[in-house]
């Protein structure tokens, strides 16, 4: 999937991945996509809740090699 910015949140636990994603999205344009790579086991649930609450769309998420890759589109 194409993306406009990437956030490396590997090794970080809640609440830091969400906080850094908020910061990254704040500097992006509407419609742009942020790719997040995270290792926190709760990352997917956290970003699902984040998307629901903030209106930024969680376009896709997957897991490989013990890493979660998530794509969040700025609303």
């Amino acid at each position, binding site marked *: 999937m194409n993306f406009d910015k990437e956030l490396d949140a590997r*090794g970080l*636990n809640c*609440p830091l991945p969400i*906080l850094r994603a*908020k910061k990254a999205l704040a500097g992006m344009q509407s419609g742009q996509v942020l790719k997040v790579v995270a*290792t926190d086991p709760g990352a997917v649930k956290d970003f699902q*809740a984040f998307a629901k609450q903030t209106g930024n769309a969680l376009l896709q998420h997957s897991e490989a090699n013990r890493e979660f890759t998530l794509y969040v589109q700025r609303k």
Partner: protein
Amino acid sequence: MSAADPASLVPYVTGGAFVLAFVFGAVGNKTDFCTMGAVSDWVNMGDTSRMRMWLLAIAVALLGSSALQLAGVVDLSKSIYPGARLTWLSHLVGGFLFGVGMTLGSGCGSKTLIRIGAGNLKSLIVFVFLGIAAYMTLRGLFGAFRVGVLEQASITLAPGQDLGSLAAAATGVDRGTWIAIFAVLIGGAIIAFAYSSRDFRARFDYTLGGVVTGLVVVGGWVVSGVLGYVVEHPETLQEAFVATNTGRMESFTFVSPMAYTLEYLMLWTDTTKIVTYGIASAMGVIAGSAAYALATRTFRWEGFRDAEDTANHVIGGTLMGFGGITALGCTIGQAITGISTLAMGSFITFAAILAGAAATMKYQDRRSGA
């Protein structure tokens, strides 16, 4: 329960604590029960579902524990929480620092144990620093500050600091009636609030996590207050609650148990040291979480990202150790177990923990991405 040899009760107490904690660890892992996460979801994205789960656990524990008390099964005044001396500054400072620490350290005491079970090595380091700091606050350098400074600010509430005793003394209506009134009013209001959210109702895990956690605390009182109760200890000729570190009736709390776990390991050859209720409960949470993680193939090793991450967890563990002992408990020990006794200090600690965690998250928010 009484017995000629109180030592014969120890396996029932520690076994019961381990089994209940195992269930809590497994369910906590499955449902993502996390008191720090509850504050984070609320403060950082306006999602209150996990806060409602925590509140539901408080309500279930309050209603269940009050029912036990009113039925005469246990006497909650024999726990450490409702004593007459309210060390309000200790609750405020300890709770606030615990809230700061749990935000820096990837979760509170129970979440630390759940994360260890799921393979998080960072939380193992938190365990060690939390345990050492807690022990230093119980009997060491930090303890001198706790007793000599913080605990000097206190007030004495002669009837006891629980709402039931205070209301009874003020009105003349008996304590049991007031316990029933407060339990129904507070517990009922919390349950109504929790289920007023469509999001909360839509996901069963929230109900599962809240109800199971609350029931585990209720069960914890039964284990210590019934299975471990000795009417007259043959050596002291006084009533006793076997295999407890406090000598009082206990339910679940997770800061001092980490200190006593380290002590037990370090003083292994001291035959007066035994696996206590608290130690068994800490091990039970790790085991339950590990069992769930392995069964669902979600076990994964996690390590530190960099020096800042390491420092945050070392500081977080230390603050939780100091704060948890100073405030007489953590987000489970005070905010669920303590509140189930309606103790004033537990409500103060709960509020202080929320303030400490929220303030730290606001600070992190300002510097995130820096």
